[in-house]
């Protein structure tokens, strides 16, 4: 199990008296990109929140990079695991400049050379240096999401929790952010746990996915299942059909890609 970046075992999560997630167990290998798929209310974001320490009322086991996670906030934990939120319009402080937002995690952890690190990070996420002293309202949605990703990466975590990072963005901007996330993962050897309801995004970004419905995982499938719809659970099949199935499901294309990535 030392290979697992994130390991969840029999995880139950409650908000007050309502249990919203039941019996969730899965492992995400180091360097893997794993997706949690499901509808609103299926508990997928809650799982991310529990891992990040934002939903403290859980039972079971959560361990990240081999270390079991406690229930409270944990400073050493934020060095290894960071989260990017869904809505870049809501997740950045409106009265803090990008520079402040990015240097804050460094200040909290007492890390020096902040200015240099901020400059480096801005270019790593593809933002021009002129954005450094601007406020969030002066940035577009895509640029803000880049800032949110940069903020999450400031402490050089190994594990990233992504909560629908592109659902608030336009198609062409979504493509830019997905490319960015893919490149960062390749360059920094990151592990991704990504929540989404967009199956094509899973196909582009992830290696495996867990499908959640009503707080439980109904199926864990490799992304190749998206090519031919070879899911076993009826709920997953419904979700797949509602997403339009695979319009490119041409037998010749499928055969060609099979030979390319076995």
């Amino acid at each position, binding site marked *: 199990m030392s290979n697992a970046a994130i390991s969840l075992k029999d995880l139950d999560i409650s908000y007050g008296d309502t249990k919203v997630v039941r019996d969730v167990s899965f492992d995400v290998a180091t360097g893997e990109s794993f997706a949690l798929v499901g509808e609103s209310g299926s508990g997928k974001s809650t799982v991310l929140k529990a891992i990040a320490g934002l939903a403290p009322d859980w039972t079971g086991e959560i361990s990240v990079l081999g270390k079991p996670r406690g229930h409270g906030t944990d400073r050493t934990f934020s060095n290894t695991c960071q989260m990017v939120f869904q809505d870049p319009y809501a997740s950045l402080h409106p009265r803090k400049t990008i520079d402040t937002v990015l240097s804050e995690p460094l200040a909290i952890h007492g890390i020096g050379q902040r200015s240099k690190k901020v400059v480096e990070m801005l270019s790593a996420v593809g933002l021009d240096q002129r954005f450094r002293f601007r406020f969030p309202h002066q940035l577009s949605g895509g640029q803000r999401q880049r800032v949110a990703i940069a903020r999450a990466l400031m402490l050089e975590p190994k594990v990233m929790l992504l909560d629908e990072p592109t659902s608030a963005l336009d198609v062409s901007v979504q493509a830019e952010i*997905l490319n960015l996330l893919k490149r960062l993962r390749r360059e920094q050897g990151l592990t991704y746990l990504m929540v989404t309801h967009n199956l094509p995004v899973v*196909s582009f970004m992830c290696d495996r996915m867990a499908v959640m419905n009503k707080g439980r995982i109904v199926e864990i499938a490799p992304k190749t299942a998206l090519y031919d719809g070879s899911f076993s659970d009826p709920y997953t099949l419904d979700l797949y059909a509602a997403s*339009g199935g695979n319009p490119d499901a041409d037998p010749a294309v499928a055969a060609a890609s099979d030979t390319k990535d076995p």
Partner: protein
Amino acid sequence: MTDAPLLEVEDLRVSFATPKGPVEVVKGLNLTLGREERLGIVGESGSGKSMTGRSILRLIRAPGKQTAKTLRFDGLDLMAQGTRQMRRIRGARISMIMQDPKFSLNPVMTIGHQIAEALQVHEKLPRRDLQARVIEMLNSVRLNDPERVAKMYPHEVSGGMGQRVMIAMMLIPRPQLLIADEPTSALDVSIQAQVLDLIEELVTGNGMGLILISHDLNLVARYCDRILVMNGGEVVEACTAPDLHKASHPYTKGLLAAQPRMQETRDELPVLDRSGGVRT
């Protein structure tokens, strides 16, 4: 009469005054919509697609300004209608479904009341008939137990149910043209398909025209006959839905390519160059 298109728009322009002078958000748009035709308008945020939808109903508020050479609906010149006459057309003959049911329904009125109100404004009916029409309508948007739903308040229903209520409200006066502005972007994928299937069924069954406004190319291609692609206030491409993949304009091609596919083999998605061209 029946050969004439349901809606004719020629040289539609919408502009807003800013300190730096007027900004045109719709720049000379032309479109025609036949009876029982389903037209999709696709574009990204700020492309002017919603403004186009609103301007057909003359819903552009000051300081916005709207001009058109022709804006004719069923032989009627909409530009020449006064405020009061427009009110009579809105809802009764042209209706619009908005994006988010959470913000479009009155929170302090029961659903049954709101739907009845939509009908009452345009038709005088005895109360019993009114009630029957509401229940019938709720039934046709496939809400289980319509009597119970009619007594509920908007906060008691889910997003998908709320959107069905909106559809019921918009269709109860039996309009000839339905404008749906991102009717499903606030909904889950599985509910999206149900709501669109429902709109499609009600539209084709009743000889209505449909304008579906969305940012989702594939979705529009699935539910419409013809597609207009908008960028920067202009229509950059018009094609029939089955021919979408043969699109020739670089912007449309860029949009299509930027979308991840179910069977993704590319390592990187091509992105649109902000200057207008396509970079891979």
